[in-house]
């Protein structure tokens, strides 16, 4: 049980793979991938409710790659990078896509 709880806190293989792809594809200055799968245990997309499920995520990305792009375009950029994960069973991705300027940050 303690091992399962620890596993849930560590990024799983899907989260790790998403992180690598987003880092490479968007060169973000900030990237947070939060696994929300436990909140959807037993629901559609995460029917088994396994403690290490990787089906629902909230991804917050701050990247200058989003500069001058609409939200739809930004989300599509993320979906394209993560196509393999979505096809393989990631059921929901809540996305927050911001530019450094929108976060009140200035790149030196």
């Amino acid at each position, binding site marked *: 049980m303690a091992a399962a709880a620890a596993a849930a806190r560590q990024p799983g293989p899907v989260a790790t793979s998403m992180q690598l792809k987003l880092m490479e594809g968007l060169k973000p200055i900030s990237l947070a991938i939060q696994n929300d799968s436990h909140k959807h245990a037993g629901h*559609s*997309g995460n*029917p088994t409710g396994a403690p290490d499920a990787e089906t629902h995520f909230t991804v917050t990305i701050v990247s200058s790659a989003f500069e001058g792009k609409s*939200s*739809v375009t930004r*989300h*599509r950029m993320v*979906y394209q990078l993560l*196509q393999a994960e*979505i096809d393989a069973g990631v059921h*929901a*991705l*809540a*996305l*927050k896509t911001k530019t450094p300027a929108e976060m009140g940050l200035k790149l030196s």
Partner: protein
Amino acid sequence: MQRLLTSARQFLPAAQRAGGLADLQRVGGYTAARLFSTDADSHDDFKPQVKAAPAGDVEATIEKDIASHDVFIYMKGVPQAPMCGFSNMACAILNLYGVEYGSRNVLADPEVREGIKRYTAWPTIPQVFIKGEFVGGSDILHEMHQKGELKKALEGCKPADD
């Protein structure tokens, strides 16, 4: 426990005995899953899906949907009873503005579910259209709401009846 298992094996055909307990459990799990997915009250997501009509028909349905309503949402469930948190949020936001909107329950229509994803090249549900244009999913709708952009986008849209 070991003794129980051993005695249970005596009743199994030789082939299954050779496969051992691991095989047995796997077969058991598989059968249970099959039963569950066809269960009458199983979630729509897990029911067998039938895909019949050609893609062109779905596209025509979608184009008719979004042309016949100022605001249209493809969602899981219906506005009175959304079946997913994201669809629920999208409806809640639209309700705030008092606009009339059409909806289609993708859980009841697997063809539309796949068709709309192809149509917009957008992999998730819900999907919201305003004046025939795809605006995005629930995150974008929420963002537009917070920034005050949604009010502008919904200007001139037909108000809800009540």
